[in-house]
């Protein structure tokens, strides 16, 4: 029967068992082991697919200032601040953070404000931590006038980031957390892992070769597609100088001497 629904982890396990049926017997089959290997395959394949489908492997978490990011964090996509005001925070380098968030020495017109918040990713105790400004860090006592502290509510928002699935998030009844078109890669990857335990030399060798070929082909196609896209983009964007070449016509206007 064709399942008209999103693939479950259980479906992948079934398919792996079907492909490796000749090598499975009473002594070497263990569903727990197979499940672990499926999850590991999903993680590996997910990492491979990051450049292919940058919109696919995303996750959302609520964050505030100094929230520790989960272990599956790869890179940030965007941060939408919901409280106290709706705004998209801009990503800054950690080396800029001091100049944009310090209550005394911050930049005059580029500083972080409620409507123009900033965030950066840094680390504390070997964990990845997000810093969001403006905030109440190091603000004690009464500030010397005319300086003012940030008095608004702490900033809260939703961080979207690239991620690979966690071990604990998946079980047999979870949906495949990757686009369906890459199901085949997950199955191949899992089969080769499973057969590594069962170990049939000849079959293993062919399967490994098959997997590497498939990945390389996918990769080459993607590279070609990207190259043609950028070539088209190059042809499409013509340089237009941001000034007029017409002579001054309004009396009193300075003559255009740019050319």
């Amino acid at each position, binding site marked *: 029967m064709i399942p008209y629904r999103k693939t479950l982890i259980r479906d992948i396990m079934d398919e792996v068992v079907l492909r490796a049926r000749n090598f499975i017997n009473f002594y070497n089959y263990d569903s727990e082991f197979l499940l672990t290997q499926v999850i590991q395959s999903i993680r590996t394949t997910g*990492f491979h697919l990051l450049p292919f489908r940058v919109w696919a492997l995303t996750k959302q978490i609520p964050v505030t200032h100094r929230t520790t990011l989960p272990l599956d964090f790869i890179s940030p996509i965007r941060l939408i601040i919901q409280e106290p005001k709706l705004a998209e925070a801009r990503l800054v380098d950690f080396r800029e953070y001091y100049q944009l968030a310090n209550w005394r020495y911050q930049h005059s017109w580029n500083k972080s404000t409620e409507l123009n918040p900033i965030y950066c990713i840094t680390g504390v105790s070997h964990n990845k931590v997000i810093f969001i400004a403006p905030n109440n860090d190091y603000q004690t006592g009464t500030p010397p006038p005319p300086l003012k502290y940030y008095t608004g509510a702490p900033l809260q928002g939703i961080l979207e980031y690239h991620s690979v699935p966690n071990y604990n998030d998946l079980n047999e009844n979870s949906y495949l957390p990757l686009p369906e078109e890459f199901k085949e890669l997950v199955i191949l990857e899992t089969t080769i892992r499973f057969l590594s335990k069962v170990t049939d030399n000849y079959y*293993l060798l062919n399967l490994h070769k098959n997997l590497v070929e498939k990945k390389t082909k996918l990769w080459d196609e993607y590279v070609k597609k990207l190259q043609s896209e950028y070539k088209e983009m190059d042809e499409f964007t013509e340089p237009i100088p941001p000034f007029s070449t017409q002579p001054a016509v309004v009396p009193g206007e300075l003559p255009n001497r740019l050319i």
Partner: protein
Amino acid sequence: MTIQQYLDEIKLRLLRFQVSSQFDDLKILTFLNQARQTITLQVIDIYPDLFVTSLKYNLKNIQTFDPLTNGLQDLNGNLITAYLIRLPAELYKPIEIWVFWETEDGITEWRQLRLVSKKEYYFTLKHSFNSTQTPTFVGTYWHSVEDGFYYLSFALPKTLVDSNPSKLEMDIYYYYIPMPLELYNDSISGPQVLPSIFDDEIIIPSFLEELVIQQTILYLLTTIDQANALQRCKDELEIFWNIINFNKEISNLRKRSLLPSKKNITASNLPVIGIEQSSSNGNQ
């Protein structure tokens, strides 16, 4: 991934090459530790944000002063106090150093430490308007071949240190290289294998674990006479590196693609005749 998961995964992969029985846990762990450091060094420029950690120092407890610069006077006659501290072994490069103290009014002051070259450090401290009396303090760091550690020398105004503020602290944010994982815990429970105690491996980001595993297998295969297996492993590792490098290239290309033009503005592509011709070329 924990050490145990790393070991399981590596042993499983080695089964593909039919060489699993030639390696024990400790040999794998030795190369695993080496691979973690190698991979971190290779990707730290691509994913710098993922290898940052911080340390807090209470400067009141630090009584080690830099003998070469402590007590200097700048050209305005202001005295300085110069500290000398040893940085942790895992340090790769400092990013940001912040100094905090609380004034008599209860205000917490937050200042950045400006890192300068060691060559100019002495004269920066002596400078009239660029010395450590300015809003940003001055410091320098270097590596010593005598003991293999990094050192940080930095200077604060002596008036600040002598005023004895209620807290005088320093936060250092730095890039790090992961230190070796241990499988044995001799000091607590004697020489027995206790992987659960040292299992908390959170230092390597999860999506780079695959690279670490591949690199470990590569190291392991180089120790035995298995040229075919070694070549297969190298090929797989190369695919991974292509992915990472190309990922970086794509992100760079995307940044450039958003600009209106990538060509230099020259006289030949300026619409010198007028707007009519530009619009007829479809440039508007």
